[in-house]
């Protein structure tokens, strides 16, 4: 639940209950005041009644005005005058209405009477009802206004927050253009905005620094590597070398070769991350695959791998270099990890999807890990970056790459949509 809803819920519960309680108190007070007013009226009536009895020396008729008066003979010597609620039957109407009564003792011609005067409570009841109705309507309007205000005002107040949140959600570390996120007059949001801007700027600059470092480090390593390679190239010209020494040299060759490929792979990753390869063109993927298949045919043949190709024209827009790398890596991967005998590679394009399948002695690989950098089998002699590069290239162009294992074949599926 949103913060605003939480707040709304709390504020509505509190204001509703406060309004109910205050309404109740209001009702009770009005009721009390109204009763008090009635009782005052009745007191006046009693006063008038006594004056009437004293001047006229007779008991008034039961109904000498709106009020009803009645007398009951009594032997009681004393009786406390009391006010109480009683039914009021208006002689003009058949129905019985609520009323207020006063009863007391009067001595008339040596005989004690208890007189009772009942007054209709109808007008005050009506007043109370009207007041109650008005109160309820006002309360309802107030609540409604409160909810609407909360909805709109709070929504508006929180907008900068959601802007910042949206920025954070869409935050891409590789994006260099960080913009001021939200305009707001609220201090808290200003602070948050500042903090987020500063943090993202710092993260981006750290990341840029790291990438520059990787790029520079990789480039710097190329020169010493070329010194090693060229020295080895000269060293093997020496005819005095024996087979043991040549064996050692072969190993150094392999190591320096691996190092340079590792470096190149790192550079490709940096270039993809930095979006440095903008040489997009329209390519027919089937042509690229066909060329690569030609290029690798000797190696495939030498490893006794059966290559099955089923290609359709599939046009994509991407950097030729990266697509070359992509297909290269797929082939390298499929050849390297294939079976020693009777291996197979199947390449198929269906619609806009490329399927690259290969047999292997290894069983299913961990889908979560295979695209990680430097994840590789113990026996693998590769750099461990091939599939990571593949994944990065796909991410870069929004292609979807999936790994599956079915019918004892490792399947890499790339959706170019």
């Amino acid at each position, binding site marked *: 639940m949103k913060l605003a809803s939480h707040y709304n819920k709390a504020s509505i519960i509190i204001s509703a209950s406060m309004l109910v309680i205050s309404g109740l108190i209001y009702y009770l007070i009005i009721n009390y005041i109204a009763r008090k007013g009635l009782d005052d009226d009745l007191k006046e009536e009693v006063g008038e009644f006594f004056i009437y009895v004293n001047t006229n020396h007779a008991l008034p008729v039961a109904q000498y005005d709106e009020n009803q008066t009645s007398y009951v003979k009594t032997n009681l010597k004393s009786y406390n005058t009391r006010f109480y609620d009683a039914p009021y039957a208006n002689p003009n109407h058949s129905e019985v209405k609520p009323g207020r009564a006063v009863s007391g003792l009067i001595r008339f011609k040596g005989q004690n009477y208890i007189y009772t005067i009942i007054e209709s409570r109808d007008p005050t009841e009506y007043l109370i009802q009207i007041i109650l109705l008005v109160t309820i309507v006002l309360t309802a309007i107030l609540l409604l206004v409160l909810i609407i205000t909360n909805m709109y005002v709070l929504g508006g107040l929180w907008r900068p927050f959601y802007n910042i949140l949206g920025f954070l959600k869409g935050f891409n570390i590789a994006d260099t253009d960080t913009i001021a996120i939200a305009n707001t007059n609220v201090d808290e949001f200003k602070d948050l905005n500042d903090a987020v801007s500063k943090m993202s700027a710092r993260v981006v600059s750290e990341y840029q620094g790291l990438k520059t470092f990787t790029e520079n480090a990789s480039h710097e390593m190329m020169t010493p590597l070329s010194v090693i390679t060229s020295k080895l190239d000269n060293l093997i010209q020496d005819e005095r070398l024996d087979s043991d020494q040549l064996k050692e040299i072969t190993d150094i060759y392999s190591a320096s070769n691996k190092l340079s*490929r590792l470096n190149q792979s790192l550079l490709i990753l940096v270039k993809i991350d930095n979006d440095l390869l903008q040489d997009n063109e329209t390519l027919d993927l089937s042509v690229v695959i066909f060329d690569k298949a030609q290029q690798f045919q000797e190696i495939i043949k030498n490893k006794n791998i059966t290559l099955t190709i089923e290609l359709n024209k599939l046009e994509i827009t991407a950097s030729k270099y990266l697509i070359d790398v992509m297909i290269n890596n797929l082939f390298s991967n499929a050849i*390297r990890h294939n079976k020693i005998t009777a291996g197979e590679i199947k390449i198929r394009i269906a619609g806009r999807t490329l399927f690259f399948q290969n047999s292997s002695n290894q069983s299913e690989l961990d889908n979560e890990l295979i695209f990680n950098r430097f994840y590789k089998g113990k026996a693998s*002699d590769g750099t461990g970056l091939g599939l990571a590069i593949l994944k990065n290239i796909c991410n870069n162009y929004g292609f979807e790459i999936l790994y599956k294992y079915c019918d004892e074949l490792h399947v890499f599926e790339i959706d170019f949509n």
Partner: protein
Amino acid sequence: MKLLIIEDEQGLCESIQKYFTEEGNICEACNNLKVAIQKIDLYEYDCILLDIGLPDGEGFIVLEYLKSIGRDECVLIISARNSLEDKLKGLNIGADDYITKPFHLSELKARISAVFRRKSFGSTNTLIYKEVHIDLLGRSVTVNNKKIVFTKKEYDMLLYFIANKGKVISKNAIAEHLWGDEMDMIDSFDFIYTHIKNLRKKLMEVTGTDFFASVYGVGYKFI
């Protein structure tokens, strides 16, 4: 062939010099732009190897200088950066080829030979090595007027070996030349053996001589 190497990395410079210095070749070296320009002013070269990252500036300046004084030496750029922009920039200002570090000396030599051949022989481009005649435009090989049919890779390999005649070429260098340096499968170079065997056999059938010498484990030599 007279060669000028402009390279600030001493070790690399010496290696290139050593590999290229042979009968008929003169190699000079310098390690900064200033000396390079002086040398270019004083002497003529057939080919210039130019490193882009030099201590006193970018190697492109040499290219611009050569262009401004109307010289047309073959220029091959050596760069630590495998960057398309650098490559295009270099080729636009007048470089003939571009090679990225690290590289094999045999690759460098093959590239220089190709560039030099292109510039010096023009359209009548026939490469003759002993009794082997190669028509570079028609990409056909004849020995004693008999045509030998090679696959594309065999043909490329033959040219590569001829450019590096008398030198031992490592299997790594051969593999990189023919299958590209992005190929990520160094576990086995057996496939090179098969390839060389075919090339060797085809040449032997016609010429009766074995041009190849295998150097234990490391590579092959063309003699």
